[in-house]
């Protein structure tokens, strides 16, 4: 198959570029890239746009296959991909959600400023590392029976709150209140439940982390006030998902769909896009299992937040106050949402793989406090660079099916990063710059070094220029906990 080149892309308004439906005869809709020209040069360098063209062939896909400016090559879908399919007859594809179902980000705000904690940063990073299990093959401190796993899969973050991990108020500040009602634990395999029995409260490895940041700059003071953000304020960012339970749900269902696809006459250019009609038995079973895994992920982040609070109290006592949840949002998920297509409101199945839901002001899913501001969108950078808090706008509904970018996006392979980065030197350099790293291995530090990622400022500037989100605050890391 021919590789997509920059010459195949036509510029559109609002920082979009289009690969026309004529590029390949099996495309059902065009493929659109949200990007600046410099970022596009990087994106065309790997196979992400060919993967996007493959997404444009999915049965029932609506309007366009989309990719955000933090795009990079994945498997099946590109990372940063968004695809909306017809409801209920269009397909659902586990590859459009990813193995880490409901991987997402949570931001908590403190009442302390950087000056209050600067002298205690090393102790805080060590305490967070001690309280929050992380790393390869590590289980957590909570061991669940199969019945308890079922309860977590049904109840999501509510399960944690009912057992003292946080407060009921937290649930208002989690996407979908931390619980998808369509979850059905009976659709989750015993293997998945076994894999999830000791994973609650753990961040895992790879690009997952817990990070202490401070608010370095505010861009929109009114929205920042609504979000409870102020300059120099210390905040904590958590990035992880449904851990091994979600990985197994995806594996089980991709395998099942591979066998089922011929029944529905579906042929695809890439097996990893395996999909079935949403309203088929296999489609419904996967959707209900995916919802259950999403609930597990929200419960996981709720418990990690409690562990972070415990570390915070151990360091600062009563003077540290409570960490308040600003928002918790997914970036690997499929949701049934309504958008205007061809002049009429229609339900669609929005797949987001490495893309964040981004609702504008007034959306009924948002808590009262954010009704005027729009949904908080949390964009982690990398250790040593910035992260961002954005706010959703109504423009995203028409342009990106209510979606935005999810991070900086990788530019180097892990192998290349390890070759380029001397991890002990990097750790020391970051320490000199005021960033304390606690990690399970030097390998993990090298793989996740800032040089491995694109420039997050460029990514955020594109989404702001496109009008799908507003810049609210820039965060700077001061302590990073990784597996």
């Amino acid at each position, binding site marked *: 198959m021919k590789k997509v080149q920059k010459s195949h892309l036509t510029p559109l308004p609002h920082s979009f570029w289009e690969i026309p439906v004529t590029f390949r005869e099996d495309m059902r809709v065009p493929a659109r890239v949200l990007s600046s020209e410099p970022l596009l040069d990087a994106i065309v360098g*790997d196979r992400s746009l060919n993967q996007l063209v493959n997404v444009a062939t999915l049965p029932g896909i609506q309007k366009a296959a989309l990719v955000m400016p933090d795009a*990079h*090559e*994945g*498997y*099946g879908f590109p*990372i940063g991909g968004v695809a909306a399919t017809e409801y209920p007859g269009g397909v659902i594809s586990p590859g459009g959600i*990813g*193995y*880490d179902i409901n991987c997402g980000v949570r931001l908590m705000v403190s009442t302390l400023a950087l000056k209050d904690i600067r002298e205690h940063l090393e102790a805080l990073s060590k305490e967070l590392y001690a309280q929050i299990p992380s*790393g*390869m*093959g*590590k289980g957590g401190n909570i061991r669940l029976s199969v019945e308890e796993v079922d309860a977590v899969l049904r109840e999501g973050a509510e399960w944690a709150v009912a057992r003292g991990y946080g407060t009921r108020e937290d649930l208002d500040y989690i996407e979908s209140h931390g619980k998808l009602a369509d979850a059905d634990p009976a659709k989750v395999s015993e*293997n998945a439940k*076994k*894999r999830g029995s000791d994973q609650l409260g753990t961040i*895992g*490895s*790879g690009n997952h982390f817990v990070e202490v940041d401070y608010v370095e700059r505010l861009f929109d003071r009114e929205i920042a006030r609504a979000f409870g953000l102020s300059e120099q304020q210390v905040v904590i960012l958590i990035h992880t998902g449904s851990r*091994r339970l979600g*990985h*197994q749900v*995806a*594996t089980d269902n*991709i*395998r099942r769909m*591979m*066998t089922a696809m*011929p029944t529905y006459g579906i042929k695809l250019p*890439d*097996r*990893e896009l*395996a999909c079935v009609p949403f309203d088929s038995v296999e489609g419904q079973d996967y959707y209900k299992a995916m919802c259950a895994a999403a609930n597990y992920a929200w419960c996981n982040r709720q418990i990690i937040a409690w562990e972070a609070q415990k570390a915070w109290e151990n360091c600062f006592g009563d003077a540290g106050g409570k960490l308040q949840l600003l928002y918790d949002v997914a970036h690997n998920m499929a949701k049934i949402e309504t958008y205007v297509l061809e002049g009429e409101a229609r339900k669609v199945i929005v797949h987001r793989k490495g893309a964040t839901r981004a609702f504008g002001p007034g959306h009924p899913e948002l808590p009262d406090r954010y009704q005027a501001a729009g949904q908080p969108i949390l964009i982690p950078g990398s250790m040593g660079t910035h992260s961002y808090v954005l706010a959703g706008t109504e423009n995203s509904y028409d342009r990106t099916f209510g979606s935005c970018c999810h991070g900086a996006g*990788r*530019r*180097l*392979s*892990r*192998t*290349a990063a390890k070759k380029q980065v001397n991890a002990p030197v990097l750790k020391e350099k970051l320490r000199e710059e005021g960033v304390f790293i606690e990690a399970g291995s030097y*390998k993990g530090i090298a793989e996740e070094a800032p040089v491995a990622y694109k420039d997050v400022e460029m990514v955020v500037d594109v989404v702001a220029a496109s009008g799908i989100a507003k810049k609210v605050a820039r965060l700077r890391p001061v302590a990073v906990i990784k*597996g």
Partner: protein
Amino acid sequence: MKIEYLPHTADVVMRVEAPSQAALFEGALRGMAGLLKEGFCEGTDALPRECHFALTAPDTTCLLIDFLSEVLTRTYTEKAVFCKAVFNSLSEDRMDVHVYGQEAGGLDEEIKAVTYHGAHISRNKGNHWVTSIIFDI
């Protein structure tokens, strides 16, 4: 048998080459074990953990990916790394296999999943069986 690990933007690509289907499957198993815990299977004779399972798949490539996925699942549920496979039967689209391994303690790499993306078993000029496999890590 030849196993290579190649760079990929977010994940790991493993290329395996072997003189027969069974050798390819066992090579892929050992390659995955090496990724989970480097050198774990080298010079190891005692493999006290055993699992038995049977699989069917639409084709040989899917059978290989499903085989590795099944072993990966058991790696986590049994808390062991598996190094050896003994096939009771192995055809283009089905297998009956015993895999052997041992407890590993911590892992060097956490593999989320074995993907079908880009995997395709073919024969090279030397009539060896070859494929690449992308692991989501």
